[in-house]
């Protein structure tokens, strides 16, 4: 009998050291271990290798907008299960889960703020909400924001991040590409600048609409940017993908984006471009009018020879 007796193993009860969760974070760029607080102080950028961790819309807003200048708009729009999408976890459940997780209504916040004192229409997409996929609400908010920019003569900034279209909304999602691009076609008839900021990752339907249409296109270092996903390309073409394929650096090399800007310099750079693109006020009416009265964004004198329309 004794032979078949199950040996008794003793699990020694070790006293675990009391490390609060979320105090440290490993950097995917350099494998270094980073102190969370230090990371927060450096705008979630690894101080050793410059890896840009994704940030929430709140952190982004704090990076870009002047303190207390943010006024959110269209926050009363909510996604609905228009297709009554069947077969997988119900869309309303997904939405509720992501709303709870992120504290957002949907994958973008839009509103008006000032950037170094300049009133600006700003939209920020947040990848943590359903991969910042574009559904009706995302498209509507961007369109409303562009229309507001047009109406109030404000420059437009969109901080883009997205996995692409929101499948749960089917073709209504695809149509947001057309809708947002349409709004930008109207903005383009004016002299109001639109700056598109590409952050990690900006792909597919969002890239094939407003994200690619900036008068100036900036990107964060290392951001994944492209149209088709890597897996799809590999499966379709059986090609070996070049190193650094679809990164911000790759796209700078291939001529799509104007600059790669580290997060810490982004606000200042946006501000510089908004100033540099404001050519007409400084020429026509003198710099004194730049910030006030009727001189906002629109030149006092229309010069046909300087028209930018194509």
């Amino acid at each position, binding site marked *: 009998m004794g032979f078949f007796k199950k040996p008794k193993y003793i699990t020694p009860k070790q006293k675990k050291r009391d490390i609060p969760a979320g105090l440290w974070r490993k950097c995917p760029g350099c494998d270094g271990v980073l102190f969370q607080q230090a990371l927060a102080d450096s705008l979630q950028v690894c101080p050793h290798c410059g890896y840009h961790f994704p940030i929430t819309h709140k952190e982004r807003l704090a990076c870009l907008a002047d303190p207390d200048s943010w006024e959110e708009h269209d926050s009363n729009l*909510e*996604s609905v299960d228009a297709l009554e999408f069947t077969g997988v976890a119900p869309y309303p459940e997904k939405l509720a889960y992501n709303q709870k997780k992120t504290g957002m209504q949907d994958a973008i916040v839009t509103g008006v703020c000032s950037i170094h004192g300049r009133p600006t229409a700003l939209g920020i997409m947040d990848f943590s909400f359903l991969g910042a996929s574009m559904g009706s609400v995302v498209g509507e908010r961007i369109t409303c924001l562009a229309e507001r920019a047009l109406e109030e003569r404000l420059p437009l900034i969109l901080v883009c991040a997205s996995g692409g279209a929101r499948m749960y909304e089917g073709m*209504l999602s695809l*149509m947001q590409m057309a809708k947002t*691009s349409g709004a*930008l076609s109207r903005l383009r008839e004016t002299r109001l600048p639109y700056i598109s900021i590409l952050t990690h990752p900006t792909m597919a339907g969002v890239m094939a609409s407003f994200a690619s249409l900036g008068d100036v296109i900036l990107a964060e270092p290392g951001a994944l940017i492209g149209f088709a996903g890597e897996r799809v390309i590999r499966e379709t073409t059986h*090609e070996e993908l070049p190193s650094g*394929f679809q990164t911000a650096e790759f796209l700078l090399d291939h001529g799509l984006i104007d600059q790669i800007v580290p997060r810490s310099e982004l606000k200042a750079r946006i501000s510089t471009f908004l100033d540099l693109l404001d050519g007409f006020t400084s020429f026509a009416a003198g710099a004194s009018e730049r910030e006030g009265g009727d001189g906002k964004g629109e030149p006092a004198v229309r010069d046909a020879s300087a028209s930018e329309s194509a």
Partner: protein
Amino acid sequence: MTLSTLEFERPIRDLEDKREQLLQLAQEHGIDVARELDSLNSKLADLKRTVYANLTPWQSVQLARHPSRPQTQDYINRIITDWQELHGDRHFADDEAMITGLGKLEGRKIAVIGQQKGQDAIERVRRNFGMPHPEGYRKALRVMKLAGRFGIPILCLIDTAGAYPGVGAEERHVAEAIAVNLREMFTLPVPIVAVVIGEGGSGGALGIGVADRVLMLQYAYYSVISPEGCAAILWKDRAFAPDAAAALKMTAPDLLKLGVADEIVPEPLEGAHRDPDATAQEVQQAVARCFNQLSEYSPEQLQATRYEHFRRMGKFSVKSQPAAEDKPQGVEDKGVH
């Protein structure tokens, strides 16, 4: 004509084979089979009606992808006269997956843009199976702008699985090419009619799809993602493509309901490939009617209504007060149309 048989067409083919055997038997032995033939014919007609009236979305997708389905060039050959093809994007290459050119429709000048998948193996390779590179979209825009300058209405025939997902396409920014087309099509001062004649594959289809009227052939589909791709992502298994096809609401009747399609162009009972001439006739009539209606509009009206048309796309709820949450009576539905 030998046409490949789809799975759901099998019972129909079996019955047709049976009829063939009966006829042969009658000929060989000189028997009168008129009565049997009659009953078999009516049975066959009934079966066809039932099968095609109850197509699942997935079966509809298979018809839309049928290798013998008429393509852009087939429609051009049948409904466009004085056809002159235009080549090249003036930057990099001539993308043969996208056909562009000028001609006449019922005597009126027209520009035609459309993806072409190719009929046989050799043409399919040349056409890259109808999946355009960025050059295809840039060529399309060049010709559309040309048409715009000279006051020529534009007909877009959509038939693509999608823009080509390849290294070169990414290096030359296919996303940007599509985005610019979307933006610029809103500014064109001439009527635009788009017809989804086969596959409407996502951004690659929409890249020539910002139109004043969007028509769909009865068995065509138009979707944000292929059913296989959607199944792979949401179901984690491509085998669920039929479920995804149903869930995505990608058929012509579904999209008419959603307001994405404006009109359905009827196909012959067993699909466009059974009678390309009749299908081309239907397309010609529908398209000509649309252009007739749109000819009343000024360029400004066209741009304004085109904007409004796409501006309405989307479905969401609007809470009456941003602050007052959980007020169901304040929730209203903003419909698509």
